[in-house]
């Protein structure tokens, strides 16, 4: 018990003293995950919206693969990105391995199926409900998918927040491709894993508290967003809210 209270007290002190090591790790984590989410959302929203509207041979197979990718283990993503970026890999010439760029790429790959699948579901529901009204105005599938995505923008904001939550809380992929190098590629999750194994529990606990705080903040944002939407237009409950849980 003494160990626990001592650890908690020291962790609290690290937080309140604005420990530079701790907050540099937090800053790096946020930076990597924000960039990865931005990259994944840029591609995933467009791809998901198109999949929500387009009808083509093989679509069902593609959706099955996409849904399977939702359960992709992060260490497998790390391994694949590692193979891509390793010196002998197809992208080895970029020299990204064990850098923040590699971590951004790995997290983006991990989050891309989440963004694509949730956007697809959202836009497909909208297409089923009122796609023909836009079609009636002359909007073909490409334009319609973008319009429907825009019309569902508040639901998609929730997707974005969920994607960020998935990115910032994963550990396997960034550990493999980043190498967990102190002061360079060490982020919150990899630092927690390392410090725990080393026995430096206060720093691990302090980082854990910050990580939980970020996830709590994201869930609060989703909740506020949902209420704001309901206030604005009386929309029904957001089907993708709570994905972070």
């Amino acid at each position, binding site marked *: 018990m003494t160990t626990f209270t001592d650890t908690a007290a020291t962790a609290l002190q690290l937080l309140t003293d604005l420990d530079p090591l701790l907050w540099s790790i937090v800053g790096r984590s946020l930076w990597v995950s924000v960039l990865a989410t931005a990259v994944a959302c840029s591609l995933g929203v467009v791809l998901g919206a198109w999949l929500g509207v387009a009808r083509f041979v093989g679509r069902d197979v593609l959706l099955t693969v996409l849904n399977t990718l939702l359960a992709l283990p992060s260490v497998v993503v790390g391994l694949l990105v590692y193979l891509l970026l390793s010196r002998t890999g197809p992208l080895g010439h970029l020299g990204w391995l064990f850098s923040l760029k590699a971590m951004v790429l790995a997290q983006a790959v991990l989050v891309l199926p989440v963004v694509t699948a949730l956007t697809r579901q959202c836009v497909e529901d909208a297409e089923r409900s009122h796609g023909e009204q836009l079609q009636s105005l002359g909007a073909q599938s490409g334009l319609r998918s973008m319009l429907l995505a825009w019309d569902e923008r*508040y639901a998609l904001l929730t997707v974005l927040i969920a994607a960020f939550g998935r990115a910032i809380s994963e550990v396997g992929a960034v550990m493999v491709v980043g190498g967990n190098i102190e002061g360079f590629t060490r982020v919150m999750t990899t630092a927690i894993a390392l410090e725990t194994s080393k026995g430096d529990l206060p720093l691990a606990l302090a980082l854990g508290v910050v990580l939980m705080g970020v996830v709590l903040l994201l869930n609060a944002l989703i909740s506020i967003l949902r209420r704001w939407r309901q206030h604005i*237009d009386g929309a029904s409950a957001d089907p993708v809210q709570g994905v972070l849980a």
Partner: protein
Amino acid sequence: MSEVLQLQDVSVHFGSHMALQAVNLQMHAGERVALVGANGCGKSTLLRVAHGLLKVSRGQVAVPRDVRQAMVFQRPHMLRTSVLHFVVWGLWLQGVGWRDAQARAWQALERVGLQGDMAHRSARTLSGGQQQRLALARAWALQPNFVLLDEPTSSLDPHAKREVERLLTDWVAASDVSLIFSSHNLGQVKRLATRVVYLEAGRVLADLPVDTFFNQPLGESHPEAHLFLKGELG
């Protein structure tokens, strides 16, 4: 009179369900055709085929190039935008420049009584009747010469129904626009239509001038339509 629509031997099936069966229908400019029949008889399918939203399984649909169509749905979906921009977006999608679209949208909103501050409200906050008036404003702004309406007043309260019907009456009185609409309201059919098409199980079983449909004995010539009228009118 020039033709605005021709359906030739049109069939539509969804899996094993035949929604339309060998339908033939010709419409000329200025005609106002009402589609009547029980739920599921194919009224909405016919309208969607005529508007190009559904592909036919068999037959041909011909719409002359100079015909500009606009469709009003039973429950118009309100885009997450303002009342004004709801109309402007519709025009923009049809290739109208944003500035011209705004000018035309203001005119259309004034026509349906949604001008002024109302134009800047979120379209989703409008009542059902106001939403349908907004949908009419958008259709009107598109300057069509052929309008298709899928049960435009069926989800509205009596007051909103009268208001929407008055707008439609004014529209047809002020122009030679052709109308085809589906309705369960036979009073409305009498007031708005010049011709009535009765459908049953995807087939056209009667296609008659409105006076003939309501005032002539149909028992021998069109027994199904006669039974329908008897059931509806009591």
